């Protein structure tokens, strides 16, 4: 089964909203850090002719593998982002995402993050949650991002599965599609190789997922309470922030 077939099925059965609810625990902290501007920056020198440039109305943000599209909606509401685009390879995801908002400044498209349908230097910031590791060629994604991001633009790459996070290793088998498993250092190195400066990297704990009492273990998903605590409270989400220094 292809990744987008798998996620089409998820979208049809409403799992996009389940992901939104669960991912929000850490994604909201990721989004809070993004330096998204709601107005034209004073450093952007624009002639009056260019006044219809979206940038006059705030930063343009791209959400890679957007799922239900919560990130774009949140950045419009909390930071007044000028424009937000969500792309997803699964058509049903993009359709669901589109049905959850009627904000004309939030747009969705079906697309592949290794073949971005955006002009060079057209995006200020890119966010991606729990999607990057589905890339068949992650270096191609980074190269595409480097191309579409403006100089100084940021890539916020958040994943719940990576090498150091031992409890995420079995996921590939569970989901049934191939998944990248980079270490924290590999993320930093690949970002740098693609022409990004690594601005930060850290683990954002999920302090909200409820963890049952000791006596309830083993549960369906967890052998021990200790492992579950480690998964959520310690590993949580790995965030790597790259800045396009081009």
């Amino acid at each position, binding site marked *: 089964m292809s990744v987008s077939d798998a996620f089409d099925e998820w979208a049809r059965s409403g799992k996009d909203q389940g992901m939104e609810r669960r991912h929000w625990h850490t994604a909201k902290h990721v989004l809070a850090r993004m330096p998204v501007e709601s107005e034209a920056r004073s450093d952007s020198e624009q002639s009056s002719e260019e006044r219809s440039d979206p940038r006059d109305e705030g930063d343009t943000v791209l959400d890679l593998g957007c799922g239900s599209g919560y990130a774009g909606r949140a950045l419009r509401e909390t930071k007044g982002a000028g424009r937000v685009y969500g792309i997803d390879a699964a058509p049903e995801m993009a359709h669901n995402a589109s049905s959850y908002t009627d904000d004309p400044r939030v747009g969705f498209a079906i697309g592949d993050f290794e*073949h971005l*349908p955006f002009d060079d230097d057209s995006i200020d910031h890119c966010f991606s949650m729990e999607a990057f590791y589905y890339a068949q060629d992650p270096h191609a994604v980074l190269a595409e991002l480097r191309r579409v991001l403006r100089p100084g633009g940021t890539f916020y790459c958040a994943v719940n599965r990576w090498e150091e996070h031992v409890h995420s290793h079995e996921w590939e088998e569970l989901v049934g599609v191939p998944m990248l498993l980079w270490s924290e250092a590999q993320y930093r190195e690949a970002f740098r190789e693609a022409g990004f400066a690594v601005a930060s990297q850290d683990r954002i704990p999920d302090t909200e997922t409820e963890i049952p009492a000791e006596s309830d273990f083993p549960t369906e998903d967890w052998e021990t309470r200790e492992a579950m605590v480690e998964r959520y409270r310690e590993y949580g989400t790995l965030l790597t922030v790259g800045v396009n220094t081009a």
Partner: protein
Amino acid sequence: MDIICCPLDKHELDLEVDERDDEEVLAGSLVCTECGESYPIEDGIPNLLPPDMREDAPA
């Protein structure tokens, strides 16, 4: 979506409208001005996957 381009060669797209309401194009296509590839719009959402990744692509 004025910064949208062809996912293959990154050239401009021309819009062909089949159906629209007040706000947006509901059905139609985006055609690359360079390679001529056509990308469908359904229910207002453009499908900009490379053609060989589209659902209807022969497996």
